[in-house]
């Protein structure tokens, strides 16, 4: 059990698969769900899958730079969540609902 954590190399590909799966699940959620908050959450999920991939590659290449990018992605995600949620609240005030189907003004 005293194995060094460095030696899990062969399972790194598994992490890649996991992150792809997370991304796809997020995308699927964005397509099927209609609640705007859930949509935002699915986007967070996709961002996290990218983070996971970056960390995996960082581990793989032995460089810390991708982890710094993860840091920035987290920052951007935080900013995005605040702005997104406040837009959502505005939308809710106007329509009394956050159903994405009701917001189809884009076609006009």
């Amino acid at each position: 059990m005293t194995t060094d954590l460095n030696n899990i190399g062969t399972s790194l590909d598994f992490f890649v698969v996991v992150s792809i799966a997370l991304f796809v699940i997020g995308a699927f959620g964005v397509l099927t769900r209609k609640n705007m908050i859930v949509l935002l959450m699915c986007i967070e999920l996709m961002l996290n899958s990218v983070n996971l991939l970056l960390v995996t590659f960082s581990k793989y290449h032995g460089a810390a730079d991708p982890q710094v990018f993860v840091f920035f992605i987290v920052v951007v995600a935080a900013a995005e969540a605040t702005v997104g949620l406040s837009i959502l609240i505005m939308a809710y005030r106007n329509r009394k609902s956050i159903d994405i189907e009701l917001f189809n003004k884009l076609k006009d």
Partner: protein
Amino acid sequence: MSLQIISIILGSLTIASALMVVLSKHPIRSVIFLVVTFFFISSLYILMNAQFLAIVNIIVYAGAIMVLFLFVLMLLNLNKSAEPESSILVKFSSLIAAGGLFLVLIAALKDSILLSKTYIPNNEAIGTVEGLGNLLFSKYVVPFEVSSILFIAAMVGAVLLAKREKQIID
């Protein structure tokens, strides 16, 4: 290799909880499952020696962003009006599209997955606070500073958006 088994178990749990995010009916359940997903992702980070990111992930995502989501959900109090279901057609086509994306991405990254046999052992210091801190405050100091501007912009934007316009009523 027991660690491999652990990582496979954790990875599967991650995927399962992520699926629950998408599949559970109630948004609050989705939030909670998303938090659980974040915890699993953090555990994966720890497996890859990125402790600092793991903790930051929990603090920022689970501790701040998701609390915000939960907060908004509670404020809107939507539990009465249930979310309308998507039609079977939409679900089916989305499943096809998502499945296609999964396959295609796997196919695209197949080479890199195969490459991992020639895995390069890395130095220990990359995931630690020191390693990241040194990089962040030297090479990436400009983006780091710029991100603070991003935060201020986001903050101002959020406040402006969420503020009720009282002048109109007066």
